[in-house]
């Protein structure tokens, strides 16, 4: 894993992060935002289950971000 971001921020005065890097592709960022928000906003699967699986997946893939 690199110690420095590999892409710049597309949002002025913001440090590079997932959102500001994705902002290089605004249409893609918007489409992702809608999908992810709908996923988290829906109640078919409870929040606790979603959060546990998200955290476990981050651990398994060794994603410290």
């Amino acid at each position, binding site marked *: 894993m690199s110690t420095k971001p590999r*892409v710049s921020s597309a949002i002025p005065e913001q440090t590079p992060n997932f959102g500001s890097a994705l902002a290089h*592709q605004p*249409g*893609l960022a918007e489409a992702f935002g809608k999908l992810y928000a709908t996923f988290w906003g829906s109640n*078919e699967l409870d929040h606790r289950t979603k959060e546990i699986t998200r955290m476990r997946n981050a651990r398994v893939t060794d994603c410290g971000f």
Partner: protein
Amino acid sequence: MSWLTKEQSEYPYDDVLGIRPELRDLYRNFYGKLWDDELVPVNLLELCRLRIAQIHECDTEWEVRHSEAGISDEQIQKLQNWEGNQLFSPVEQAVLRFAEKMPWQHHEITDKDFETMRAHLSEPEVVALTVACGLFDANCRLRIALSVKQGKKETKAPAGAEQAIR
């Protein structure tokens, strides 16, 4: 795919996602944007998609072919051994080097991999390609986990906002 009881169309992966239609439609829009808007040259997208399918041994993803991506049969035959092969241009080799680390070697992606891609592609293109490779990887994992099977499919594009995911 024995567990899906609803009637299936010729696009079983799309059918499975359609059990949650609102999420399926938003996913179509997200994944489809890569292809609809050609955020990265389509030959690069297609080569990365196929190489990731090959690494996952995901037959259902592998069997989908983008008929207008400009990939030759010879390139497909040699895709496993692309490195240093003149059938693949320098930019194709650059993106393949990056893409094939996405499934199992994502921690081995280097700054140099990005610098090599940036020699050929703009920063927005590199961002789109990174998202694309993440989605190609995810699609293979979903297809395998859900046990979605289908026959060979030649299609204008693997996805689009207004079409079923192939």
